């Protein structure tokens, strides 16, 4: 309805290959970025920044990571949280043990460390597929967390295993306030999301999708399965690693290995299922959904049923609704919120025609 595409013709492949080929989308996206990059930090209150917006961004990043592996390269993983843990503890140790380590470098190194571990655990993917691989990634989940718990060096011999993230400072500016932390997260996530989008729309992304859709044909075309799959594991883990580091440094501040448990891995998996498998936008939508839903339920359940039912009821209801939604989405729209948005957009573009 809002689209006016007539006359927006493309006279070069560069124009045709843009992320947003339609002008109205570009305008809309720019507005969105301005809102979340400028207006939100200026206007939003501390609760929103700390408890909702920052984690949504961080989980989006992790979900992008998982989406690269699962959505684009077709390798199901149940161990995303473990790679986040690697990132979080790597960043902690880099900053702790290297004098004058710049935060952004530590962030990148944290991602690289996670990528390295990711490649290691991606190796089985060359021999095994599907469920077998999914189970194999569970091994990563348990093993990595165990290593972080069992070797106190990683937590700087903290007796409880809990580490407290150091203060974030870039070029002398300390990111202490929720606003500052949010903006930092926003920028990192924006840059990495753009890079991810670029990856998946280029030859790298096509290689991943080729392997996902039909690996024999991909091989016959000349793709090397090993290289392609391991790259997916590396990039995916990199994103999860950076997300883990941000999780520690700009979100909760103190982390312990057990915090990156299987539940968190599942949560990230749910984000991409609900958000949309194989969609960068979907990662954001899914993360927002999964972060907001419990908050919504926490507020809604007492309002609807009163407090009499107790906290247990609410948390169980939450479980049921979570699980139910997953099933619902898989049945009704296996491509998640991103596809719904896409359908809505198609409708808007064709309005007033139905198809």
């Amino acid at each position, binding site marked *: 309805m809002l689209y006016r595409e007539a006359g927006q013709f493309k006279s070069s492949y560069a124009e045709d290959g843009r992320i947003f080929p339609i002008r109205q989308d570009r305008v809309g996206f720019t507005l969105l970025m301005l809102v979340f990059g400028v207006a939100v930090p200026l206007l939003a209150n501390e609760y929103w920044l700390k408890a909702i917006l920052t984690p949504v961004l961080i989980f989006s990043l992790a979900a992008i990571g998982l989406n690269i592996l699962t959505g684009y390269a077709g390798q199901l993983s149940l161990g995303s949280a473990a790679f986040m843990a690697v990132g979080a503890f790597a960043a902690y140790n880099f900053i702790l043990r290297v004098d004058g380590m710049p935060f952004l470098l530590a962030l990148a190194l944290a991602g690289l460390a996670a990528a390295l571990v990711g490649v290691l655990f991606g190796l089985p993917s060359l021999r095994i597929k599907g469920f077998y691989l999914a189970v194999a990634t569970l091994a990563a989940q348990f093993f990595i967390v165990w290593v972080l718990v069992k070797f106190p060096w990683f937590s700087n011999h903290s007796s409880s295993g809990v580490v407290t993230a150091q203060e974030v400072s870039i070029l002398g500016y300390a990111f202490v306030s929720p606003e500052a932390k949010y903006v930092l997260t926003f920028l990192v996530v924006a840059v990495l999301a753009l890079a991810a989008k*670029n990856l998946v729309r280029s*030859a790298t992304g096509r290689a991943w999708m080729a392997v996902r859709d*039909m690996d024999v044909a991909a091989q*016959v*075309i000349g793709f090397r399965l090993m290289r392609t799959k391991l790259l997916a594991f590396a990039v995916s883990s990199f994103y999860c690693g950076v997300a883990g580091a941000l999780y520690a440094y700009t979100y909760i501040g103190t982390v312990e290995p057990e915090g990156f448990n299987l539940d968190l891995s599942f949560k990230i998996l749910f984000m991409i299922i609900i958000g949309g498998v194989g969609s960068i936008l979907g990662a954001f939508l899914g993360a927002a959904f999964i972060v907001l839903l419990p908050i919504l339920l926490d507020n809604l359940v007492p309002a609807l049923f009163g407090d009499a039912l107790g906290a247990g009821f609410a948390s169980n209801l939450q479980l049921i609704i979570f699980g139910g939604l997953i099933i619902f989405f898989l049945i009704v729209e296996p491509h998640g919120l991103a596809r719904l948005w896409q359908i809505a957009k198609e409708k808007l573009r064709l309005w007033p025609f139905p198809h």
Partner: protein
Amino acid sequence: MARQSGDVIVDLRNISLRFGGVKALTDISFDVREHEIRSIIGPNGAGKSSMLNVINGVYHPQEGQIHFRGQLRRRMEPHHAAEQGIARTFQNIALFRGMTVLDNIMTGRALKMRCNFLQHALYWGAAQREEVAHRLKVEEIIEFLEIQSIRKTPVGRLPYGLQKRVELARALAAEPHILLLDEPMAGMNVEEKQDMCRFILDVNDHYGTTIVLIEHDMGVVMDISDRVVVLDYGRKIGDGLPDEVKNDPDVIRAYLGGAH
């Protein structure tokens, strides 16, 4: 026909292939000459697809040798075959269903692209230039195969005949020396078959591509092939010009006998 056949570029000698105890191919020898259209025919289960799979390294024969351009090739993986300039289509369409026609064909350019994933992540400078350059190549193929109107359509939404054409486009995108086509016209109506025939001849003519073709439609095979190999139960029972093969008593027996 003005086509000129050249030197032998693929020479298969005494190929035998087994799956467990099942013999798929037994002691098969034949060659493929540059620029020719070489057809492999035979009843269902004769081992035709296995033959193609041997040529491009999907299957590894237990016995026999394969020479490419006079050089012996040892155990070869599919991507090695691709690097050698061998492209193919599949009997059951093997397109990447989650991608658009354009992206599917772009994958065919994979081996010709040089940028690494970091450049892709930036999508700036070299990576973008490369993408544009290959897009142009792909667009030429799109025009060649007359699929302009569907370039942005996800392949899953296309009718069967068009999917076959897109698969051919993807194979062509690699600018192969040798094109292996596994039943490119199976399941098509007369008009689609005619189109596909024209495209195959055009490819052979325009790009000089050597084509190895499996096809069931005898009329088509006899029309467009330079030479024909006949397989039956994994053995070669005939080899030669279309007319020779057509009149070969062994071949006739296999076909008539097989038609019960």
